[in-house]
C-alpha cells in the first residue's frame, strides 16, 4: 500500500507519452472516419473531429486535448474542403473552427484534470485515513511504551517506502529508542525527513525517516501524514504509559492484600499455639501452684499438640516461601503412589480416629516419578482438610486409580462441600472457604498441594461427592507420557 502518491494528480498537468499518443491517435481516427463522409456531409465531419478532441482531452488530459485540437484544426480543412487533401488555411471559417477546437480542448482538458486531481486527492485522503486508523488500533493494542515505539517504527516502513526509521523519545525521564530498517540493507543517503513527537505542545522526541538512495523525495503530503501518524503514536504511548502505571498499581494492591492476609494469618496462627505453649509451660514452672498428675498431663498434652501444630504451620510457610521463590523443585524418583498413600494413612490413623477412613488401592499400579516427601505432604494436607471439615463419624475415602496414563488420587469426605464458584479460589494461598471461615487451618494446604502437583506436571481439582461433601482429586502423569 502506498499512501501518498503524486502520479494521478499529475495526469493533466504534465506532457506524458500516453498523452501525446492519445492526442495524435484521436484526430487520426477522426480523419479516417470523416474522410469518406466529408464531401457530402461536412457538418458531420466537423462533429467527428470535435468528438476526437473532446475524447483526447478526457482520456489524455489537457495536453492531449491541445495536441488533438491543433492536429484536428489542421487536418479538418484538408478533409472537408473540396478538393480533398489540398492544404489551405485562408478562410475565416477554418481559423474559427481551429480556435473552437482548441478552446474545447482547453476547457475539457482543464475540467478533466481538475476532476482527476480531486479524485486522486479523495482517494489519497481515504488511504491516509485508513492508514491512520489501522495505525491507531495497532498501536493501542501494545501495552508497553517500548513496544508502541517499536511497532510504530516498523509500521511506517512500507506505506512510506522507507529504508530506515529512527525514533528517539523521552518519557517519564526514561530514554527510549526504536529503529526499524528495511529488509536487505538499502543504499544509504536517500532523502530524509524528520518529525517531532509532541505530547500536547511539548516535544518528547524525534522521528527521522529515510528513503533508499534514489528514492522519491518527501512531499508536503508525506510530511503532513507523518506528523499525523506521530500524533497517533504519542497518544498510544501516553495510554500505554497510563495502562502500565495502572497495572503496577493493581499488582501492588494485590501484593499488599496478600501480604496483609499473610500477616494476619501468620500472626494469628503462629501466636495461638505459642500462647498455649507459653501458658502451659509457665503454669508448670510456677512453684506456687501444685498441679495434680492429671492436670499436669493435660497441660503437657496441650503443649505437645500445639508444638505439632506450629511445626506443620512452619512447614507450610516454608513451602509457600519456596513456591514464591520458584524453588519448589521436586526431587523425583520412581515410586508407587499407593505406597505413599499407605504410609500417610498409617501415620494419620490416630489423627483421623474420629472418622471412618477407607482406602481403595489397586492390586497393581505402574510407577510414577514423584518426590515422595512432597506427595506425602499433599496427601497429608488433603486428609487433614477432610478431617477438619467433615463431621465426626463420617467417612473419609482415599482411592488410587490408573487412568489415561496417569495415576489419580481421590480424597472424598462428607463435609459441607465447596460451592462451585469457590472451587478455583480455594487453591489460592490464605483463602478460606466462605462456608467455614472459622475452621482452624492456615489456608495454605491446598495452595501448596496445587503447587506440588503442578510442579509434577499434574493437576488438582474438586468434584462433588455423590454422598454429599466433596472430592479433592489430583493426578500425576506416568513415565511413558513424558516426551
Amino acid at each position, binding site marked *: 500500500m502506498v499512501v501518498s502518491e503524486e502520479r494521478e494528480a499529475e495526469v493533466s498537468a504534465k506532457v506524458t507519452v500516453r498523452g501525446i499518443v492519445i492526442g495524435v491517435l484521436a484526430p487520426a481516427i477522426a480523419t479516417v472516419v470523416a474522410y469518406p463522409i466529408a464531401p457530402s456531409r461536412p457538418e458531420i465531419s466537423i462533429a467527428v473531429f470535435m468528438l476526437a478532441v473532446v475524447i483526447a482531452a478526457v482520456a489524455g488530459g489537457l495536453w492531449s486535448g491541445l495536441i488533438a485540437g491543433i492536429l484536428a484544426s489542421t487536418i479538418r480543412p484538408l478533409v472537408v474542403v473540396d478538393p480533398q487533401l489540398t492544404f489551405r488555411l485562408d478562410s475565416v471559417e477554418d481559423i474559427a473552427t481551429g480556435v473552437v477546437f482548441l478552446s474545447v480542448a482547453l476547457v475539457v482538458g482543464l475540467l478533466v484534470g481538475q476532476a482527476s486531481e480531486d479524485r486522486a486527492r479523495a482517494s489519497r485522503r481515504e488511504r491516509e485515513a485508513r492508514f491512520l486508523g489501522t495505525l491507531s488500533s495497532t498501536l493501542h493494542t501494545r501495552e508497553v511504551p517500548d513496544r508502541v515505539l517499536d511497532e510504530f517504527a516498523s509500521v511506517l516502513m512500507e506505506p512510506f517506502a522507507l529504508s530506515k526509521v529512527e525514533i528517539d523519545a523521552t518519557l517519564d525521564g526514561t530514554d527510549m529508542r526504536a529503529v526499524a530498517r528495511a529488509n536487505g540493507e538499502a543504499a544509504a543517503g536517500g532523502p530524509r525527513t524528520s518529525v517531532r513527537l509532541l505530547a500536547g505542545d511539548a516535544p518528547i522526541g524525534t522521528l527521522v525517516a529515510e528513503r533508499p538512495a534514489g528514492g522519491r523525495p518527501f512531499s508536503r503530503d508525506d510530511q503532513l501524514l507523518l506528523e499525523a501518524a506521530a500524533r497517533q503514536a504519542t497518544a498510544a504511548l501516553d495510554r500505554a504509559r497510563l495502562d502500565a502505571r495502572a497495572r503496577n498499581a493493581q499488582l501492588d494492591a494485590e501484593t499488599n492484600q496478600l501480604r496483609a492476609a499473610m500477616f494476619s494469618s501468620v500472626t494469628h496462627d503462629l501466636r495461638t499455639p505459642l500462647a498455649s505453649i507459653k501458658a502451659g509451660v509457665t503454669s508448670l514452672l510456677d512453684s506456687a501452684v501444685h498441679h495434680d498428675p492429671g492436670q499436669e498431663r493435660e497441660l503437657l498434652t496441650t503443649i505437645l499438640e500445639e508444638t505439632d501444630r506450629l511445626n506443620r504451620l512452619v512447614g507450610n510457610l516454608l513451602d509457600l516461601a519456596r513456591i514464591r521463590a520458584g524453588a519448589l523443585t521436586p526431587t523425583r*524418583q520412581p515410586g508407587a503412589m499407593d505406597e505413599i498413600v499407605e*504410609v500417610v494413612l*498409617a501415620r494419620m490413623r490416630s489423627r483421623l480416629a474420629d472418622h471412618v477412613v477407607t482406602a481403595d488401592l489397586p492390586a497393581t499400579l505402574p510407577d510414577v516419578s514423584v518426590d515422595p516427601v512432597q506427595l506425602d505432604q499433599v496427601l497429608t494436607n488433603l486428609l487433614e482438610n477432610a478431617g477438619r471439615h467433615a463431621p465426626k463419624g463420617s467417612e473419609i475415602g482415599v482411592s488410587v486409580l490408573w487412568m489415561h496414563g496417569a495415576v489419580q488420587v481421590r480424597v472424598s469426605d462428607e463435609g459441607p462441600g465447596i460451592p462451585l464458584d469457590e472451587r478455583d479460589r480455594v487453591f489460592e494461598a490464605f483463602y478460606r472457604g466462605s462456608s467455614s471461615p472459622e475452621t482452624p487451618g492456615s489456608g495454605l494446604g491446598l495452595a501448596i498441594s496445587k503447587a506440588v502437583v503442578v510442579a509434577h506436571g499434574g493437576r488438582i481439582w474438586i468434584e462433588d461427592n455423590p454422598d454429599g461433601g466433596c472430592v479433592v482429586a489430583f493426578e500425576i502423569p506416568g513415565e511413558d507420557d513424558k516426551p
Partner: protein
Amino acid sequence: MNRVLVVDDEPQIRRALRTSLEAHGYEVQTVGTGEEAVIGAAETAPELMLLDLGLPDLDGTEVIRRVRGFTEMPIIVLSVRDGQHDKVAALDAGADDYVTKPFAMEELLARARAAMRRAQPGEPPAPSMRYGSLEIDLGRRLVTLDGDALRLTPTEYLLLEALVTNPGKLLTHQWLLRKVWGQGYGTETTYLRTYVRALRKKLGDDAQAPQLIVTEPGVGYRWIAEGSGAES
C-alpha cells in the same frame, strides 16, 4: 553407663538433649562442630552419636565418613523434614538411623536403644524368632504363620532375612538391593517394592497399619517387630 555424644550447633537443642538423656541415665557429652565431633568420637569412644547434619564447619556426611574410619559405634542423624537426599546420603555413608526434627524424645530414645542393642557384640541372634503368630527359623530357612509353613521364593526369603537380622534399623533401598540382589544393583527400587509387597501379603502385614515392615518413602524399609526367641 552409656556415653552419648551429641553433635548440634544449636545450644538450645544441646541443652534439651543433655537434660532429657541424663534424666534417662545416659552420660552426655555435647559439641557444636564437626571437627569436635570427630575428635570426641575418637577420644571418649562413646556408645552412640547423635549427629545434626547442618553443622557450620563440616558436612554431616563427611563427619560420618571420618568417624566410620575408626569406629562402628551407632550414629543417629538428626535432620529436618526436607533433607531426604541428605538422609539417604548419610545412611549410605554409614549412619544407622535418622530422626526428623522436631522429634519426640521417646521416639529418639527408642531409636537410640535399638541402635545400641544392635551394636552390642552379645550373644548371636537366636536361630529362631517368634513375632506373634509368625515364626522365622533362620537356621532351617523355615517361615511359619499360625503354624502353617509359608512358601517364600528365594528372593523373598533373602529379603526377609535381611530385614529381621537388622531389627529396628532403617535399611536403605540401595543397601537392601545390594544385600539381596547383589553388588551390581542399587537403583532398581521397583523390584524391591514388588518383593516387599509380596512379602507383606504372605506375612499378613497391613501397610496401612504395619506391625512388621514399615515403609520410609524414598528412603527404605524398617523391620519394627520385637521378636522373642522361640524354642525350635
